[in-house]
């Protein structure tokens, strides 16, 4: 059994037991706290890798302080489960919660387990982790910026031919377009850290050479259409990713940096950032194909994982 623990902070004993069973059965050491005061007292002795709580507890005045302290103690991957409507923009904006799992059920066990595995094992990359065994992945590498539009249009058409609803196909196209556009134009940085393609006209042709090439993979099982977009710059950092997710301007005004990521987040069911600073950025978008929109939760999940050096 792993010695670095997962700390569950929740006032409801039944929820504590449920989450404990899900993660404990995989072999992780799980510790429990009823509230933030009790949990804060455990941080020094436990040094948890992962702290799990519920978004409803974000209304507790001690919420932000606790997560800051947890992060300072090495639990840089804090997770909030959202069982009821909660102020997602505020949660994202606080900057401490790097993982939010939104679910219509008491607990979304699969995504909870995947998140814990990725953090505890330090194995972050690959869309395979979110798809059922045997799911075929399709791979394309962009060598010209203009390939983007054709790739995403073909992706939408292919999903239609496979019997997916027009809504799912449209959302996947939109999300893929935004993620690829970001990887092509915003990811490249020079030695001084300048994003030298960010202001280039998006309809101007660009030849993508070496690290500028963008790899796209996608697959679909009975649960998700999953799209993975990779660049070899690793210029996206944790705080920028979180700020993009929580971008308020998308509702009030629009425009500005990060609009594409904000649109992608609101157009999929789960957005995952796998960050290896200076080396690689991988963004995975999951669009749930099991439920119609009227049965899905009113917010989307996210993870921001940062590779430990």
């Amino acid at each position, binding site marked *: 059994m792993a010695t670095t623990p997962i700390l569950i902070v929740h006032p409801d004993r039944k929820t504590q037991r449920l989450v404990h069973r899900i993660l404990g059965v995989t072999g992780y050491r799980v510790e429990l706290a009823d509230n933030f005061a009790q949990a804060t007292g455990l941080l020094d002795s436990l040094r948890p890798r992962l702290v799990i709580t519920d978004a409803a507890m974000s209304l507790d005045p001690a919420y932000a302080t606790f997560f800051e302290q947890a992060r300072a103690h090495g639990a840089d991957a804090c997770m909030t489960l959202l069982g009821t409507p909660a102020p997602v923009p505020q949660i994202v904006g606080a900057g401490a919660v790097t993982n939010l799992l939104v679910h219509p059920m008491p607990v979304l066990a699969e995504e909870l387990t995947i998140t814990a595995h990725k953090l505890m094992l330090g194995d972050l990359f690959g869309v395979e982790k979110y798809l059922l065994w045997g799911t075929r992945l399709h791979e394309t590498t962009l060598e010209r910026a203009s390939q983007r*539009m054709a790739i995403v249009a073909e992706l939408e058409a292919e999903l239609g031919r496979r019997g997916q609803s027009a*809504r799912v196909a449209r959302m996947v196209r939109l999300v893929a377009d*935004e993620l690829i*556009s970001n990887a092509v134009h915003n990811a490249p940085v020079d030695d001084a850290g300048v994003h030298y393609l960010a202001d280039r006209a*998006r309809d101007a042709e660009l030849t993508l050479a070496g690290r500028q090439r963008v790899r796209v993979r996608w697959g679909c099982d009975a649960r998700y259409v999953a799209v993975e977009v990779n660049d070899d710059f690793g210029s996206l950092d944790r705080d920028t990713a979180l700020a993009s997710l929580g971008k308020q301007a998308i509702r009030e005004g*629009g425009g500005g940096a990060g609009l594409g990521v904000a649109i992608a987040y609101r157009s999929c069911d789960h957005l995952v950032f796998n960050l290896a600073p200076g080396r690689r950025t991988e963004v995975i978008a999951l669009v749930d194909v099991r439920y119609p*929109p*009227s049965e899905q939760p009113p917010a989307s999940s996210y993870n921001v994982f940062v590779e430990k050096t």
Partner: protein
Amino acid sequence: MTVTPGNGELVLSGSIDESSELDKLLGRAHDNALVLDLAAVTFINSLGVRDWIRMLASAAQRGISVELRRVSEPVIHQLNMIVATRAHTRSFYGPYACDGCGREESMLIDVDVNGPALARLQPPPMTCPECGSAMAFNDFPERYFSFLVPQAP
């Protein structure tokens, strides 16, 4: 994106993206009014959204009113996410699913005809074009109709 003249309106088709040059539409307004039929717009990304917002701002500066008709679902998705993209909407498409045969269909909703019901977040009833069964609205009305909330009469 292609633009073709319709019956007192401009019909936009295809993708609204970085190459759309939406500001040029304002030059085709009549009597300070621009009416756009968006039924055939199949895609709009963040770059198209930026262009759209600039076009609306320019229209406001020049005193040109913009009216939207038969707005497709991809455009409604953006209107709901980004307040600045909204303009007076006369009709739009909404997602429906058939309780009988499972068919999903985008159905046209007239805002003038259904205004009071839409204000109460009640989608108008629809009949399945395939089997004739009643169709159910296939999204949260609170979410899908939110673009109508600040709309002036």
